[in-house]
């Protein structure tokens, strides 16, 4: 029962607020003292094209590119938050759900280039406002995204400019969306012609009924005849067009359309245009009626053609024109994705801080729908971004860096403050210079500054900048000498980084790491965050999920009533997903099946004995459902998100109350993966200070727990506190 990481995170959250506070005052002071204060590059619709051109250059020259995203939310329901009890596949389902439902509103991109002449990095922080505006009309579902109220409130607290985002944000199309649009365009273009002909046919079929129509048609026929005659005369004799009456001029204007003489028809009603179309069709072999588009508006034209051949040629030209225009529109609508394409095609080292969710968003928004399994996701992400580094992993797994961080919090702002104090405080001599600080010069347009720090926390562009600074400093501490580093060599191949390249936290809560290159999972490594010890080992085959029980039942009571039925040591852990659902981990996998069978039996037989059975406390109300861990996964994979887990289960369509396990063989085959965590405790550093701390807290807990029940009681309540706390932490960018 070692509970020390919990206490740590409590103190962490305290220090974090303090750190944030001091960072603010420091920044305030610095902006007063340091002269070169200018904002980072904010990019919206209006300056997107020009910024993109600059960014292309910067990214091409860069040694690495740091990124950060701001989203409209993280979890679509409380029970979708990440738990220690999430198996690897469930972790992915939760990330997938989040990336699919929420929108990216800000995207920070900050290319870093080593300037070998001045021995410093040059950073170009960009802050893109992104908004999933629907620029092109398409059928089907409308563009829609979810907002998590607390996240929006969080953004507001950091003065996020929602107006800039919604009014001016750059929109985008994913690769898949673009392909779909082009496909639609192709079929539409083929249709365009048939549509044209069909219209003409229909026009021919309608007889003129009213006298007015007949008169109007006759008048038009004469007009076109005149115009044609003039045209032909003009060809022969070269004389000027005859002066026509004023109103004629207004309605018919002669121009050249695709090198052919043509008349623009102005100010006619749709009905009149239909009649004109009919007249042309009926009486003029060498005139065609055309609807052409340009500058976003349509115009109706009568074009003179030499021959049928010429006519086909003209039609083709018109069609191609329409097509080109549509293609241009689609290209413009690709918008912000050009930045992602750039990052992907340049194959630069991408640096993020705890960035798995960011990567999932990038995939979902700019490439296509997320794959169904984590394995597929990992392999396809690796194709798009072959080199990635997560600074949070760097800080937590490397002993040198861990020591530098004093084993404290590795939140971005904390890491920035402790690793790059000379930047965070904007003064070069603050760090007493016992350490070689990596200098970072910031360039925005024509402004340069070597002690720039005028960004705001949780602004994507500034967060990307901080991430990049942390990475640069971390590299230096890992013994990478940038002075010797040639710009042509890829930083990702540096041997000092080899252990960390393409490693991402799959779930920060569990400390599960995935290697994108190989697709292998690496077990939670650090002693510092050996969260596994917080719970007895998690065995997914020993877990049942129970929901819909009476709301006042606490973990303690649930533990009691199950223990009464299955023996005092039957229950290892009770974990609340939310107030309507718990995981119960049994000491033996057989107990899962036993529990489900007993529950089923008690519910079908309504005799006095079953009413008095200890388990009946849990079944009171008649809505209690239970199933194995697999059902939990199934429920997580549903696109529906109800706030309460019990409601979710109902909405997903679960109608049974107990799902028995077919055979015990099956349980064995579904054996969980948590074992793999055991293997790779590679970095399990033996920090003496750390160990003593652990022991101390263990002692405290041992003293507290006089007997087993009360001990686990305390743990249960600590879990509850921990969930609350981690909730708080998760909303602040870890």
């Amino acid at each position, binding site marked *: 029962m070692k509970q020390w990481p919990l206490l740590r995170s409590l103190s962490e959250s305290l220090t974090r607020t303090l750190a944030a506070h001091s960072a603010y005052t420091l920044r305030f002071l610095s902006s007063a003292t340091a002269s070169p204060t200018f904002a980072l590059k904010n990019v919206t619709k209006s300056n997107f094209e020009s910024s993109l051109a600059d960014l292309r250059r910067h990214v091409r020259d860069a040694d690495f590119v740091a990124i950060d995203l701001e989203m409209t939310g993280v979890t679509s329901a409380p029970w979708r938050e990440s738990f220690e009890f999430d198996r690897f596949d469930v972790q992915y389902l939760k990330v997938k759900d989040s990336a699919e439902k929420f929108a990216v509103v800000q995207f920070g991109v900050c290319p870093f280039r080593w300037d070998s002449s001045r021995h410093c990095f040059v950073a170009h922080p960009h802050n893109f406002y992104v908004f999933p505006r629907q620029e092109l009309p398409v059928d089907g579902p*409308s*563009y829609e995204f979810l907002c998590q109220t607390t996240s929006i409130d969080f953004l507001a607290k950091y003065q996020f400019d929602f107006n800039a985002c919604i009014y001016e944000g750059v929109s985008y199309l994913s690769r898949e969306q673009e392909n779909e649009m082009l496909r639609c365009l192709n079929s539409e273009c083929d249709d365009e012609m048939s549509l044209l002909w069909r219209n003409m046919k229909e026009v021919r079929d309608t007889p003129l009924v009213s006298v007015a129509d007949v008169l109007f048609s006759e008048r038009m026929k004469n007009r076109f005849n005149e115009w044609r005659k003039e045209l032909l005369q003009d060809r022969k004799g070269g004389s000027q067009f005859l002066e026509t009456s004023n109103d004629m001029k207004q309605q018919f204007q002669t121009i050249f359309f695709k090198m052919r003489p043509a008349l623009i028809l102005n100010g006619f009603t749709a009905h009149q245009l239909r009649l004109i179309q009919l007249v042309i069709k009926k009486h003029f072999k060498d005139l065609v009626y055309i609807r052409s588009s340009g500058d976003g508006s349509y115009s109706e034209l009568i074009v003179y053609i030499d021959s049928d051949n010429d006519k086909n040629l003209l039609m083709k030209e018109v069609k191609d024109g329409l097509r080109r225009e549509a293609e241009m529109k689609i290209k413009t609508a690709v918008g912000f994705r050009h930045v992602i394409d750039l990052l992907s095609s340049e194959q630069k080292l991408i640096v993020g801080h705890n960035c798995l969710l960011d990567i999932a968003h990038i995939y979902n928004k700019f490439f296509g729908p997320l794959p169904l399994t984590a394995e597929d996701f990992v392999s396809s992400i690796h194709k798009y971004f072959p080199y990635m580094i997560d600074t949070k992993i760097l800080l937590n797994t490397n002993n040198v860096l861990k020591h530098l961080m004093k084993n404290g919090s590795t939140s971005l702002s904390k890491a920035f403050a402790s690793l790059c104090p000379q930047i965070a405080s904007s003064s070069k001599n603050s760090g007493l210079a016992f350490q070689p600080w990596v200098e970072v010069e910031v360039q925005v347009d024509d402004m340069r500054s070597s002690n720039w720090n005028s960004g705001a926390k949780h602004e994507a562009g500034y967060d990307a900048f901080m991430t990049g600074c942390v990475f640069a400093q971390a590299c230096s501490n890992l013994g990478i000498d940038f002075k010797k580093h040639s710009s042509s060599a890829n930083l990702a191949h540096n041997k000092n980084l080899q252990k960390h390249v393409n490693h991402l936290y799959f779930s920060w809560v569990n400390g599960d790491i995935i290697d994108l290159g190989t697709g292998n999972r690496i077990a939670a490594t650090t002693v510092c965050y050996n969260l596994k010890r917080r719970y007895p080992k998690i065995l997914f085959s020993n877990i049942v999920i129970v929901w819909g029980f009476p709301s006042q039942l606490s973990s303690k009571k649930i533990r009691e009533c199950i223990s009464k039925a299955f023996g005092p040591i039957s229950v290892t852990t009770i974990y609340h997903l939310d107030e309507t659902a718990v995981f119960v981990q049994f000491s033996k996998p057989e107990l899962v099946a036993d529990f489900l069978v007993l529950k089923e039996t008690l519910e079908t037989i309504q005799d006095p004995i079953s009413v008095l059975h200890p388990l009946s406390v849990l079944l009171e109300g008649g809505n209690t459902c239970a199933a194995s861990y697999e059902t939990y996964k199934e429920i997580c994979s549903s696109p529906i998100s109800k706030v309460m887990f019990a409601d979710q289960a109902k909405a997903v369509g679960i109608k049974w109350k107990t799902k028995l396990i077919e055979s015990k063989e099956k349980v064995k085959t579904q054996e969980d993966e948590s074992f793999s965590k055991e293997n790779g405790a590679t970095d399990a550093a033996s920090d003496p200070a750390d160990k003593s701390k652990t022991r101390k807290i263990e002692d405290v807990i041992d003293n507290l727990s006089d007997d087993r029940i009360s001990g686990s009681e305390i743990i249960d309540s600590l879990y509850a506190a921990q969930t609350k706390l981690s909730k708080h932490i998760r909303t602040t960018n870890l």
Partner: protein
Amino acid sequence: MWLQRRGLSTKREWRVKQVTKSNFSQTLESLKPQISQSDFVAVSLQKTGSFSAPWHRVLPFDTPQTAYSKARFAADKFQVFQFAVCPFSVRASKVVAHPYNFHLFPRDELKIGMPSYSFSCQTSYLASMAREGFDFNVCIYDGISYLSRAQESVANARIGNPIPSNNVKTSSSTPSVADAVFIERIKSRVKHWKSACRDSSTRADEALVKSLRKLILGSEEYRSRPCVNLDVCSEHQVQLVLEVLGEFFDDLVPLLIPAKGGGTQAVRVILTSSEEDKDLLKRELQDLEEEQNKRVCGFREVIDLISASQKPVVSHNSLNEFAFIHSKFLSPLPPNMDEFMCSLRMVFPHVLDVNHLMKEIGPLKKVTNLSAAASCLKRRFFVPIDMEIPHQASNEDKIHGHNVLKISHLLANLCSILKITPEMIQSDGGHLASALEGYANIFHPHSTNTEDPIDGGIKVWTDDTRKVSSEGLVFIWGFRGRMSAGGLKRLLQGSHSVFSEEFDVRMVDGSCAIVVFWQSGLSQTFLEAISSNWISGLLREMVSEGLRAAGYETYKKACRLGFWEADLADSLDKALEEPDHNSEADSEAKPTGPSQIYWSRDSIINLDEL
């Protein structure tokens, strides 16, 4: 400043007071008398979206129940950003209006995950709000939060704010042994604690001793008075504690501490120094409670004001508007339309829909949006109605929330055209003037209740409408690629003998079409044919290619079970897979027999609403 303008052409001059957190309580004060003095209250909501897929909007062939299911789905999903309220009266040919536009944001003020964990936004809705110059920063930073009535009671329990308790019922029954023991224990504990308090207040102890004593006695301070918490296990014990206190101790004030899951966890006993001090404390507690309530319910106070006034509430598209109002400010929407109507009527007894009133006037029958209605009125009728807004309007007040004025003006116009005079309008004593009674509480967007209010008929807006029983409707989907209605009709014509009779085809969305059989019984023949083994010819070919068909009941089922897939085809497939639960179906959708539907020759999906 009195602004008096004539007609709708000058509507830019109409000023609507914008309300955020900062001026909310001040606005509330002025709104209170204005509501109680007005004839009507117009409301209009600006939402973050309304339907996610084409078929999710209310379609002409929807029954009241399916239309409600759609409205319910949207109301649960989207959020209200602006809520315009306008109490108004009609006097002679003048509308006196007090328009306010409240900016709302569902901020979790109490940190208890309410009013809303998350909400959806449709980008097109946000973009169109942006085109109107809406300030999202103001809305999100300073919008007023709220809790629904249902949420408020949950919140009170969850925050665990102490509740003053004044009503002590003296139980007549003689106490049991257990009770007697409990009473004695409480009595001695309180006595002991009281004397200790009195003692210590006179003695100047060391800090350590003081805190030790506090620890031992379990004594705390509440509003700078000593207090102690007495744990209780049941409501019965609460009652016993209160009795003891009432009987033996005059200078103690009890407070109930709610438990997390409802009920009472403990009784907090506060020691007062004198009778005056006791009164003072009681007053303090009362103020505290009121303040607490205000903080908790936020904007809902406006809803409560309107409800308490029992004034007729006027809106446009009342089904959607009131589904949102019910869901956000009253309680979660019930699955059934009838329950919704009942529940709503308890809060708003008279709801008028201008959209429905317009259906009474020939030229306005087809009009579905407010601006079109206004211009149509201006063209067709001469109704000189003045607008008077006796507001202190500042220049910053922008045009947001204008619809509520349009609604007020439109209602006055319509009343005038329908010859409902101001004298008849003025309602008295909570009863709607009988002239308007007939138009109230009609929630179906396509209904004209005057013709057939009983059979739940559905009417489409065109002149060329024909009545068709819902039994004559068949949904078909699963055809290859994009199809036009015409193409599909041609295809069907040669496929089976039922199509030699008159029938119509319309696309519902890209994936699904609806077929109308004008001759009764043919739809059944077709449905049987398509699922039989003897299917042959072209129809067989089409079915092999994936064509599927289902009757109207399947559509109803999809709506009832909430299968809101993006394509109607997917939803119908899902509904077909779902086994029938008759017992459940009966309780939710009463077997009212086939609904009458008015079929329109026009395009079935009306796209001019956006």
